[in-house]
């Protein structure tokens, strides 16, 4: 069988591949078919994902509003209370809903406000003097590109995951398949680490073939990360939409009715001090990082503080009763199950957002490579795989080599 397959009309692309058995040839066909029929769609996902990894940096480059630039003479960053006071002095009719301090300190803190008309907006605040530097759009670039990449803007209705989420994350499966079949098909690929080959003057087909293999062996870990995390997002959606939760977080914290102070009017309540709330949370868990917090959205809800764990792929949070400063809930790394931790790290691992800008640039580079691999794969495929498939099928069907179509 194998011998007959080799006598098919399509010769293997490189001389050394001629020794390849039928299995390797089958792997090559599967490798070709995994992404090709959807190559433009996969390419689109790869390109948008690549842009998404550096979307925050792109905003930083194009908009001075989001930069944490230090004014002349300023030395210290404002405490949360001082910053909020400065913001509210500029927006006296507003109330604060949430604050976030981007992990990379060259970005300005973001404060989400709600005004008297009920309109919400997010403002960029200078961390040194509290000046409002700019207002984020209704759909900022970061959210735009993430929503485009993550769920194609398709709606999250019915309390379940968006169909777009399924459509995108499903492609993690062929991505893993491409990786595995790519390794199967590329015999002794490790040799190419020491002897890389990228022939430029021998025509497009040779160049793209070399590029595809070279980029492939160097981006194996990256493709594995993206494929596995993407596939996990698909599984996670399936589990969630079928009522399976792996979270140990439980229902949101609701303050006990008895712990609410007895006052005649809201105005009689002492103002909430974020500095004190954070100090209280840190007293309960000294290692807690504060990357952001949400103020209570109703009389029974706590202040929720969140931040990265000491190991940056994990997250921790604390909920503090705003009336008495008591920590009502703590979610340290140690409070989360191993499965939960293994699944929460899928997100930063997919985004490349856990070791600062350099890792983001690495992700961006490999994202570009992966996008180009989809493109080069398509170019190779159109020149080879269709032909090879016919030959492969024909060789197995007919007693003699057949040159006609056998689809």
């Amino acid at each position, binding site marked *: 069988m194998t011998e007959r397959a080799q006598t098919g009309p399509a010769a293997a692309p490189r001389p050394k591949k001629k020794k390849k058995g039928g299995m390797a040839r089958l792997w090559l066909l599967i490798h070709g078919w995994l992404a090709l029929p959807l190559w433009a*769609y996969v390419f689109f996902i790869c390109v948008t994902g690549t842009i998404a990894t550096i979307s925050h940096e792109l905003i930083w480059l194009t908009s001075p509003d989001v930069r944490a630039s230090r004014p002349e003479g300023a030395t210290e960053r404002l405490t949360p209370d001082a910053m909020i006071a400065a913001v509210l002095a500029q927006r006296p009719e507003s109330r604060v809903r949430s604050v976030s301090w981007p992990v990379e300190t060259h970005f300005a803190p973001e404060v989400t406000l709600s005004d008297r008309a009920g309109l919400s907006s997010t403002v960029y605040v200078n961390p040194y003097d509290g000046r409002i530097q700019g207002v984020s759009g209704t759909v900022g670039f970061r959210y735009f590109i993430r929503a485009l990449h993550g769920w194609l803007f398709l709606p999250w209705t019915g309390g379940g995951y968006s169909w777009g989420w399924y459509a995108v994350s499903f492609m993690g499966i062929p991505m893993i398949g491409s990786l595995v079949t790519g390794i199967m098909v590329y015999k002794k690929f490790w040799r190419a680490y020491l002897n890389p080959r990228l022939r430029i003057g021998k025509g497009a087909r040779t160049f793209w073939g070399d590029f595809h293999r070279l980029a492939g062996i160097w981006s194996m870990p990256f493709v594995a990360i993206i494929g596995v995390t993407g596939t996990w997002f698909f599984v996670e959606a399936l589990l969630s939409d079928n009522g399976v939760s792996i979270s140990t977080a439980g229902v949101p914290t609701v303050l006990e009715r008895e712990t609410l102070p007895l006052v005649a009017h809201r105005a009689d309540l002492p103002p909430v001090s974020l500095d004190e709330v954070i100090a209280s949370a840190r007293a309960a868990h000294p290692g807690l990082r504060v990357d952001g917090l949400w103020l209570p959205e109703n009389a029974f809800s706590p202040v929720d503080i969140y931040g990265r764990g000491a190991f940056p792929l994990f997250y921790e949070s604390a909920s503090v009763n705003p009336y008495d400063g008591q920590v009502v809930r703590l979610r340290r790394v140690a409070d989360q199950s191993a499965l939960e931790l293994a699944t929460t790290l899928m997100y930063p691992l997919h985004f490349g957002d856990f070791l600062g800008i350099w890792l983001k640039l690495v992700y961006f580079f490999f994202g570009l490579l992966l996008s180009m691999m989809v493109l080069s794969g398509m170019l190779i495929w*159109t020149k080879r795989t269709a032909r090879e498939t016919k030959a492969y099928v024909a060789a197995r069907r007919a007693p003699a080599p057949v040159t006609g179509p056998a689809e």
Partner: protein
Amino acid sequence: MSAGIQRGHAATRLGRWWQDWRFHLNALAILVPVAAFPAFYHLARMDTGEAGLGAREPAIVQAGPHALRLVEFTVDPPMNAGVAGRRKVFRLALCPGCDDDIRAVHIRLGKPRSLRAAGALFSGPPERQTADMAVPDSARARDAIWLTVEEWSGATHQAQVPLAEVAPATADWLRRRKEGRE
């Protein structure tokens, strides 16, 4: 005008076109986000409040001294939230200044038996709060929506408004469900 893929033996022009372009047609998938964007953007404007409080003109519900504005978030029948059952999202705006008196507002389909069973709690800034109301299996189309206002002073006020008035599609859906069961 071959797109690079080797042709089969299609006889017709359409067949040849298909042979050439079939594996590039998935580029049309990019039209999906283009088509979905307006609804996505509208939802983002609903989230910030730029697109108004809810899906229609709010109903004024007078609960004791407080005139509350209540409106459904979408005009759709209740959504199926899986294990969370059927849900319907409402938006509420407190009267100006009432926030100083009002500690909480709850929403329930049907009359609550007690304050502890007053239903879903509204969350958010006083001018634009959101609650996710359960539509239980026992709900009927002629049920009223009950708002329970809890003041800081301890006083409570209740008010009701017909479901068909604030969420007609939900009332219709309940009516059809009842007919289907009979």
